[in-house]
Each structure stands twice: as C-alpha cells, then as structure tokens.
C-alpha cells in the first residue's frame, strides 16, 4: 500500500551538506581567502555592493565566496544581511565635484579643465588571454603621475550649464524618497527611479540602454563625463548638529548629454541622464544614465513608445533578487494547483468526447 513520502527535513540537511562540499571543491586545492576576493576580484565585489545596496567590501567578498561566485546569489545574501542592520540616518548628498579622481573621461570635448585621465580601464586593452596570469607572475609597477594637488576638476556638464546649453538638473528640494523604507508607488519621482536603477540588475539595464541606442526610444546620448574616484561621506549626528566626515567610498559617476529640446518658454537645451554606483562600474552607470534619460520621457513631453521609457515596466522588473526569486519559485511544489487544472482539463476533454459522440450519432 502507498505511504506518503516523508523526509523533507533530512533531505534539506543532506542537500546543504552536499552544497557545502561542492562549494569547497577539491580539498587539496587551497581555499580562496576573503582578502584574495576583495583584492583580486574587485569588480565582482563592486557589483555585489552596488546591487546588494551595501558598501562593505568584506561582507561582499564573504557573500561571493559563500555563493560560489554566483553574483546574484551573493547580492541576495547581502540584501538579506542588510535587512537586519539598524539605521542611524541618512548621509548628506555626496559631493562628486570634490572627488579624488582616479579616472575621468569626457567623450564630448577633446580637452577639459583638469584633463582627461584614463586610469585603470580595460578600454584599450586587446582582449587576448594573458598566459602570464596562468602563473602568479607579478605585474610591473604602475607609473605614477607627479602629484598635482588642487587641480580643479569642474564637472563637464557644469561647463555647458554656464552657457545655458544644458538644462539645470531636474528635481525639487524635497527630501529624496527611499524605496527600501517605503513601498514604490507609481507614478514615481526621479529620486526613486534613480535609486531603483542603482540597485537594478546590470544586465537588465544594459539591455534596456542598448535598446534605446537601437531605436527603441532613442535619446542621442554623448558621454559628457565619466569619473571614478573617492568621495567623502558626511553625516550630521542629531546631538552635534553639524556634519562630520564618517568615511570615504569609491564611486563611479556618469553624466550623459542627450538630445536637446526647447519650448515656447525655453530655448533649445541639451538634456541630462545620470548614473552613480559604488566602486568601479562604468557599464552599470552608463546604462543607468541612458535608462534614466529614457524614463524622463513623460517629464520632457516625449511620447512613450519603447520599453525603456515605460516606468512601471522598467522599475518593476529591474531587481534581480526579486526576479530570480520569482522565476525560480517555479521549482517549488505546485501539486495542488496542478491537480486543480488536471481535474478541469479531464472534465473538458470528457465533455468534448461526449459532444463528438453525440454529433456522430
């Protein structure tokens, strides 16, 4: 006689043990250390911090190790850890104008005050596999530039702004919202859109940004400025009442210059798209800036025709932790619902057979 399958609990425990063993791999190979991940897989760490929405290199490295290198799984681990953290308050807005710049390029002008600084980039490397990395050969020391303290690096878009050639940054003086503390409601403001995009999946934003370049909501972008470097984080403790620098973080900022627009009241001006992320993440911030600009279609009086211009579509599907959870939940048992469909389908088929029989008679 049939006995219902039992043993979910033992099965889970056994699966977890097997997973731990597989994660470790061949025990004769030394285990990778968190320091190695944090120091040598820096861009993976940056991505996990970005989409995990938590600036902590050590925790991100731990998450990557625990997730066997699956970055979305690592992002998920960081998000879950983030839930448990107490909140002390909100930092002051970052001042990226005062960034200690490591890299800074503009595709709009040949030369800019403060200069173009190529920095650590894959951009002009030839993508040839480097046999030297098979062994642990150390790279040659990098050249250092003569220190030039105090070189002002005004933002490229500000230079255009002085002439009125580009719109003023949009937005109002209201406190920005926080979609981790309040549910996102539509229609939403640019503050929450940018927060959503900053946490959004890099691949999803990349594809959407690409689609705008191929004509699905074209915005004629120029990379006005991309800068990477260290900025100070300042916080005003309530009991002190004045700002205190509490740390430094590395960020990448991208400001796009987009197609111009004029109206009866305003002469034609370029428009803006903005991207910002933790660590070095140019692909992400450029995509973010393109999508940000596309999502401003309504505000700029453009017809919404493409997916990248559709706020509900973009913002509701950008979060990879949500997306992966819901897609993968199809692995969970659905016996009851499937049984309900079976009962109906059998009945419909029986009815159809009966109808055919009657028709034949």
């Amino acid at each position: 006689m049939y006995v219902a399958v039992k043993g979910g609990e033992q099965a889970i425990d056994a699966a977890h043990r097997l997973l731990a063993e597989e994660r470790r791999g061949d025990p004769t190979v030394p285990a990778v250390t968190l320091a190695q991940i944090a120091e040598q897989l820096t861009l993976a760490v940056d991505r996990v911090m970005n989409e995990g929405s938590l600036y902590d290199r050590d925790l991100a490295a731990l998450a990557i190790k625990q997730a066997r290198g699956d970055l979305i799984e690592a992002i998920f681990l960081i998000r879950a850890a983030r839930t448990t953290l107490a909140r002390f308050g909100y930092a002051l807005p970052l001042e990226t104008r005062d960034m200690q710049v490591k890299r800074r390029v503009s595709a709009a002008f040949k030369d800019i005050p403060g200069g173009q600084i190529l920095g650590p980039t894959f951009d002009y490397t030839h993508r040839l596999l480097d046999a030297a990395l098979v062994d642990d050969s150390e790279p040659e020391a990098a050249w250092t530039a003569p220190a030039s303290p105090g070189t002002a690096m005004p933002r490229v878009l500000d230079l255009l702004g002085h002439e009125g050639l580009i719109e003023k940054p949009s937005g109002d003086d209201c406190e920005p919202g926080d979609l981790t503390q309040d549910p996102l409601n539509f229609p939403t403001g640019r503050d929450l859109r940018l927060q959503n995009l900053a946490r959004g999946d890099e691949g999803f934003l990349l594809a959407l940004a690409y689609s705008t370049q191929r004509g699905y909501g074209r915005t004629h972008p120029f990379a006005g400025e991309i800068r990477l470097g260290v900025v100070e984080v300042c916080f005003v403790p309530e009991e002190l009442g004045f700002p205190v620098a509490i740390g430094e973080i590395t960020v990448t900022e991208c400001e796009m210059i987009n197609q111009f627009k004029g109206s009866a009241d305003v002469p034609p001006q370029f428009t803006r798209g903005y991207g910002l992320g933790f660590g070095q993440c140019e692909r992400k911030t450029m995509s973010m800036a393109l999508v940000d600009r596309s999502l401003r279609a309504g505000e700029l009086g453009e017809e919404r025709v493409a997916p990248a211009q559709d706020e509900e579509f973009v913002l509701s599907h950008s979060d990879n932790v949500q997306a992966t959870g819901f897609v993968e939940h199809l692995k969970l048992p659905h016996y009851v619902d499937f049984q309900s469909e079976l009962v109906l389908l059998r009945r419909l088929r029986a009815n159809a057979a009966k109808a055919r029989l009657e028709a034949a008679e």
Partner: protein
Amino acid sequence: MNPPAYNFAYLNEQTKRMIRRAILKAIAIPGYQVPFASREMPMPYGWGTGGVQVTAAVLTPDDTLKVIDQGADDTTNAVSIRKFFIKTAAVKTTERTEEASIIQTRHRIPEARLTENQILVFQVPIPEPLRFLEPRETETRKMHALEEYGVMHVKLYEDIAHYGQIATTYAYPAKVADRYVFDPSPIPKFDNPKLDNCPALQLFGAGREKRIYAIPPYTRVKSLDFEDHPFEIQTWDQPCALCGSRDSFLDEIVTDDRGGRLFVCSDTDFCARQRGEA
C-alpha cells in the same frame, strides 16, 4: 567580522511595527491591498517572504506555529520556513491544526475548521486579481477605487463561452465584504468556501509585490460567479485511498508508468486524523 545577532523572529522591532501598522489597516479595510515596505528576507522572493514577514510581525514567544505547503507539513519549503522560525524565534511548532495559534500556508486552507484563536497567514505571489487582465498598477488601483470589476466578469464569461464553464481552478477571485475583489492566493477554488465567515483572522502577505491584505474574522467572502453558472468546487470520483475521506482535496499520485493513479488527501494532518493515527 562578527556574525550579526538577530532579533526575535529575525526582523527588527522598527520593521515589525511598520508591518503591524499595515496589517491593522488591512483589517480595517477588508480585501484592500495595503502597500508596505517589504524587506529582503533570507529566503528568495516568491518563496514565502510576504507570509514570513507577516508571521514574524504577529508572532509572540507564546505562539505555536504550524507551517504547511500544498497542505502538508513535510514539504521542503514548509520545513525550511518552520526551521527558520525555530532558529530565529525559538517558538513551539506543531503539525496539528487545532494546536496551532498561527498557521502559515502556501496554496491550501486546512480541512479542519479554524477557530477564533487562530491566525491563518497566506503566502501570496501576485496579490492583484486584475493583474493578468491589466498589467499596470496605476490602472488596477483606479479600477479598485471605482469598484470597476467588469473586466473580471467578462473574463469569467469568456471562459463559459469557450469551455462551457469557468476555467479558473485556483487563485479564484472573490469579493470581500461586498466591496473589494481580491486574490485568495493560489489555493484551489475548493478552498474558497472556507474563506467565508471564517472565525480565524486571515492575513495575506506578498513580499515581492509589497502588499498585505486581510479578511477579518466572520467576514463575508463571495466567490465571483453568475446566476446561471453558480460557483462550484472540484470533486473526485473516488475517496482518499488512505483515509477514505470524501470531502477533502485530493492529490494525485502517479504510481507507475502504465496509468496507475492514487488519490490521497493533500492535508496530511487531516488525513492522519481520519485514520486515527495522530
């Protein structure tokens, strides 16, 4: 690097207060979907994060918790969620429906009638009953506000026109307290009658979609239908092969590759009781 210490039932008190406020509002407006600032939980979205957050917010150290998935206590995800609360809240757990003060469920309502001393927490994937008819939240919100449920009736009517009957078998839409049409989560329509006039408080949590809704005790819940096509539930030709019950929802077990089938209760606690085991 110290591992973080967790608060009772994982969520910090601030978050629990926020969720409780949403629950109170949901109880005050039966069937209305209250937006709440759903948090990332240590289990994936779509795997019960909404239910887990609701349970975490209403759980007290004196509670006895039962967790079921597909009606059974032993399904892997039910085991995983029960373990989560044992680990983070150290509460008593049970598999017996009448012993539980809180029951978290996915896809079923227990066969045994619930009592006033119980809370039933549903895990909800898509809280919006109109979502597959209108994908935009801005639109569906308006439709609820205006009580504009014509599209739903048209959908059910089209079913009848195509199939001779309503072809929705689970997540069957119902109207709560004569006002809001709501999605009872993917429970089979077999369970819809249990929603009506239920003595227990019924809470629905959708984590990914960030919505909480509720049916207060003894509230009227009417499954949508037509006068000439009244709402009806699934029936089986045979009783449960284990306990012989004729009035419970049956799962189909494939016993061989020659068409062998066995039908057994989906509610494992109910089935064991019928057999006098527990």
